[in-house]
């Protein structure tokens, strides 16, 4: 796996944000951590990363809104792989996310860190193949 990939992680829970960031940067990826939706949007538009990990419930701007805004970007955001992370498996959010081509809606307590990494790498690889 190409370790030059750049990953945006948007998560308001600091401990969780650093667990994810440390994991991915430990493997060798470049990580952009963002503590809320607005910050996430700013970094997303500036850096146009290869993958976005997105929390759902966040202050300032929630994950679903940020997802919509990213998808509005035709060149990059339209196709960037996005994985939603949540602690509320609310079918409404799941189906809303599916409208914006996000099918990975992970309940955090059900996922091991290593499996999140595996899924993320799989998504990035799939996009590479497509391009």
């Amino acid at each position, binding site marked *: 796996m190409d370790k030059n990939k750049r990953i945006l992680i948007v998560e308001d829970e600091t401990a969780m944000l650093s*667990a994810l960031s440390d994991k991915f940067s430990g493997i060798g990826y470049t990580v952009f951590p963002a503590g809320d939706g607005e910050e996430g949007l700013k970094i997303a538009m500036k850096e146009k990363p290869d993958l976005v990990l997105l929390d759902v419930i966040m202050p300032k701007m929630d994950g679903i809104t940020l997802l919509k805004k990213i998808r509005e970007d035709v060149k990059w955001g339209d196709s960037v792989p996005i994985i939603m992370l949540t*602690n509320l498996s609310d*079918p*409404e959010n799941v189906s809303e996310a599916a409208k914006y081509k996000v099918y990975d809606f992970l*309940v*955090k*307590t059900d996922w091991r860190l290593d499996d999140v990494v595996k899924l993320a790498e799989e998504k990035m690889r799939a996009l590479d193949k497509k391009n």
Partner: protein
Amino acid sequence: MNFIFKLSDKILLTIFLFATGLIFSVVFFVGGSVQQILILGELIYIFVFLTTFVISRSLSKRLRELTFEVEEMAAGNLSKRLRITSKDEIGQLANALNELLVRLQTGIAQDVFKHREIAQAKTDFVAIASHQLRTPLSIVKWYVDYLVSGDAGEVNAEQLKYLKEVYRSNERLIDLVNALLDVSRIDLGTFSIEPEPTDIIERITSALKKFLPDIKRKHINLEKEYDIVPVINLDPRLTKIVFENIISNAVKYTPEGGTIRLSAKKTQHQVLIKIADNGCGIPREQQPKIFTKLFRADNVKKIESVGTGLGLYIAKAVIEKSGGKIWFQSPSLDLLLDKNKKDDGLTIDQESKGTTFFITIPLEGMKKKPGTKKLTSLEN
């Protein structure tokens, strides 16, 4: 004309007349002949008798009417009011009952309101529990994961052992939170059923996967007898949760070297799934309670301290909501007979009575049930 005599007044009047009569008779006894006294006595007696008869008749008639009306209310017609036909004690009683009814009705209205409030509080709990409890649980999970993987520096064998204990306990908490969430979703009726063509055998296999390490560790002999069963419209997640909950018990409560037998077959209108074990069984006196929320039988508490007492409650709710049935038999005839055969008909080991769970799922499958929440317990 409105003559108001209170009942007590009527009785007093009667007594007064009787007493007057008595005085007169005394006077006559002194001044009149014996015959006159007797006639007067009889007259008084007849008068008192008639008065009492009339009063008691009207009283019992009114009471009968009241009883009839109250019975009608008790049957549910709380908006009805008692007729007030007199201002005596009966009238007052009717009046008091009417007031009681007004209070009852307001009380019920308040109860309904309160009930709604409680339902709302439960919904809030689901949301709060999901988010507030799961967030720290996932933080612990991920950091322990992080440490165990060695990414944060080398971990020695002893540290690794402790970290794994932390991880295991945390997983238990996650399971408990998930199960509690499921229960509140079941109780509130907010969980959804999303049927799709589902292979039941595949669902059993998938549910079993989680327990394979334990089955191997305990040298449990796993037998499978699957007939070809048709693909049925079922919610695959819910189906798996049900199987996981039953298999989990079988694995936990079957001793080392024991047997678990899974079978599935198609009958005329349904698929019958049997999960049999020769484990500790369910004590007869506690059998009626085992599908009750939070209940754990005494004998299993001794074997395994881990357990929420929610698994069977959830399984039953899911199966019954989808038109199926779930029941059990303990001691289990399935494995007991085998055991007898093996032991050459020797006495049955009282400690290994075994249990068989039976689940039927109708061939027409589950009906779609829109809901706002999914069930999550034991999800992988």
